[in-house]
């Protein structure tokens, strides 16, 4: 099958690419705001909107359905925000509840639709699991317009969204309308999610929001490159997934896109320069001996720091025991450290680190700061 000659494939790939760009770029902000699961909640909550529009109008035209889906998702996020602000129910519970309850209500409406005699209802299920192959030209046109509008708005409000993501209290203190900006951001995210429902479906939509951002985050520490990278990863995965699933029989598009994305995330987690697991493992190997030092030595070192001018100021075992977890064998640890020449006794039951012990402790602290930075 040839990408440039196959019309359906081109339509599907274009749709998946637009989706990847919009979801990747907006997902970056959601990721940084610790709202990665909002995409999941939004996509589930869209179901009653889709069903209601179909019940009322009887049509499956892309635009009304998308508007219905977006409205329902929007209502769900408003409900979540209200519950979190006005009760002690935690954010994740409110989100999960909105997701499940809205979806349940959507299911009720779907069964209501299924009772209708007309066959036009067939195909509504494609919203649940996504059916990229059924995308039509008019779907992709609507998706592209909405996706481009999202990206343009994101560019126009770039500075504001940056403020919202990193220090929204500071924005408040500047007198910026942070609550309204939060609302606009959520609206854009709603639109991005709605674009993807037909392509990847309700369940997998959350991956389109989270995964590109998670991969891009490993590769850069700056916002603009991260957003661009996430959008690029989204486009690449969308198009690759669409092409792969068209070449291999019985390979559904949505899950294929998600697996491509997941592979990219795993690769970036392992190989990201300076941050990835491989990199850290190499660094850790170098620092291992120092990092594995006994906590008792670290406590003794901390105590010795209180007396910088008396290197041999002794400390009692009892003090060390209160600093250690219940049940830790402090005496045994001291004996081991004594044998390794890291501590020495300075009088009756009094202990102090040796110069070597002090140096080892300093190295361990250095290693730790290096690792956590």
């Amino acid at each position, binding site marked *: 099958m040839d990408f440039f000659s196959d019309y359906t494939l081109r339509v599907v790939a274009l749709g998946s690419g637009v989706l990847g760009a919009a979801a990747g770029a907006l997902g970056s902000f959601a*990721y940084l705001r*610790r709202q*990665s*699961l909002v995409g*999941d909640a939004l996509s*589930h909550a869209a179901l009653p909107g889709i069903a209601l529009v179909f019940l009322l109008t009887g049509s499956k035209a892309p635009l009304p359905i998308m508007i219905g889906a977006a409205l329902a998702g929007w209502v769900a996020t408003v409900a979540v925000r209200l*519950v979190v602000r*006005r*009760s*002690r*129910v*935690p*954010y*994740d*519970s*409110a*989100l*999960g*509840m909105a*997701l*499940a*309850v809205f*979806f*349940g*209500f*959507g*299911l*009720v409406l*779907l*069964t*209501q639709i299924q009772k209708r005699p007309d066959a036009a209802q067939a195909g509504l*299920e494609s919203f*649940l*699991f996504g059916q990229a192959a059924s995308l039509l030209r008019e779907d992709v046109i609507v998706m592209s317009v909405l996706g481009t509008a999202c990206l343009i708005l994101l560019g126009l409000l770039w500075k504001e969204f940056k403020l919202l993501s990193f220090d929204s209290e500071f924005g408040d203190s500047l007198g910026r309308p942070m609550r309204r900006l939060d609302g606009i951001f959520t609206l854009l995210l709603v639109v991005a999610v709605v674009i993807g429902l037909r392509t990847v479906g309700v*369940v*997998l939509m*959350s*991956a389109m*929001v*989270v*995964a590109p951002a*998670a991969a891009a*985050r*490993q590769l850069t520490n700056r916002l603009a490159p991260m957003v661009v990278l996430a959008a690029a990863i989204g486009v690449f995965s969308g198009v690759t997934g669409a092409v792969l699933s068209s070449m291999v029989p*019985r*390979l*559904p598009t*949505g*899950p*294929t896109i*998600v*697996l491509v994305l*997941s592979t990219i*995330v795993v690769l970036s*987690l392992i190989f990201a320069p300076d*941050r*990835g*697991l491989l990199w850290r493992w190499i660094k850790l190997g170098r620092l291992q001996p120092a990092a594995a030092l006994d906590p008792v030595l670290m406590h003794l070192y901390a105590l010795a720091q209180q007396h910088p001018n008396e290197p041999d100021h002794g400390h009692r075992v009892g003090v060390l025991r209160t600093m250690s977890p*219940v*049940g830790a064998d402090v005496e045994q640890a001291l004996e081991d450290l004594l044998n390794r020449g890291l501590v020495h006794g300075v009088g009756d039951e009094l202990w102090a680190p040796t110069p070597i012990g002090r140096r080892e402790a300093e190295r361990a602290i250095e290693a730790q700061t290096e690792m956590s930075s």
Partner: protein
Amino acid sequence: MTPELEILAIAVVTAVAAALPGTYLVLRRTAMVSDAISHAILPGIVVAFFLTRDLNSPLLLLAAALTGVLTVVLIEALIRTRLVPEDASIGLVFPALFSIGVILISRGASDVHLDTDAVLLGELAFAPFHRLTVGDADLGPAALWSMGAILVVNAVLILLAWKELKLATVDAGLAALLGFQPLIIHYGLMTMVSVTAVGAFDAVGSILVVALMIAPPATAYLLAERLGPMIGLAAIIAAAGAVLGWAGALALDVSIAGSIATASGLLFAVAFLLAPQRGLVAQAQRRSGQRLDFAVRMLLVHLLHHEETPEVAEECREAGLHRHLGWRESWTRRVVGKAENRALISRRGELVLPTDQGRRLADDAVVGFSE
């Protein structure tokens, strides 16, 4: 029992069984893990099905439960790398596992009845058709027995580990310091969630599992102040939601699972509005009470300030109070009425003057300010 009543029994037992571990999920702020587990068990079921070629094999449930635990292990491993925040870890793991499940199904099982919809949506209406029989005796629907067993196991485990679960939930740091193993408790709880989700999914679908695990405990959280009553209330609310949803579905002839989820959400909405201490209505009442109370004090301070001065005839004249205090007339009337009711002021001709009790309160208010 008629099939309808059997469905009701299954729904109630499932709801209560899910509410028990769900309470801890809500309190530990890990509610979304139930969503992840209930989706991610799909590949476990599919692989086990390929091995056994039998949709009713208990091996399917075992594999699904193991996949659920694997999901949690993967999420925890991702969080421990400290490269990805917790919410994103959840959002990365379960779509990947679910995708593997969907692809396995469409590549290998398209000839049999193993639909993603069935897993995701469930169909409670079919549950009574699958029966548990010993010899020739019909012991009732299999789902009722399996969920009943899960309910009993959940209840017994929670009672046995009551103290440990409570401590690890409220203060994991202290639990670790005292030598309990919060990690073991965490995985124990997650195993319970997995098994419950797996047991429930083929009767009610994975989305309803999420609704049942989160909504009733969250509702109870608005009503109870202690862990024991909260779990008890969560169980009662879960059962009530199941009954309501079942009745609604029967009346309207719609999806029972969806209807129960909707009913659970409605019960939460009612509690959110009307909970005696924490509801929106109670909050609004408390606020308006406090506002009135504060206004009464303001009025008393104003009267006390002017009662011994030459301007008393103007400043303490009832008809002019709203101007001096900058209040609307209707509100002023309400405040004066309230103060009179509480015997804090008395009228003398056109004037309003504080009583002794009113003076004390105004003094208190002023001293409170200056301190």
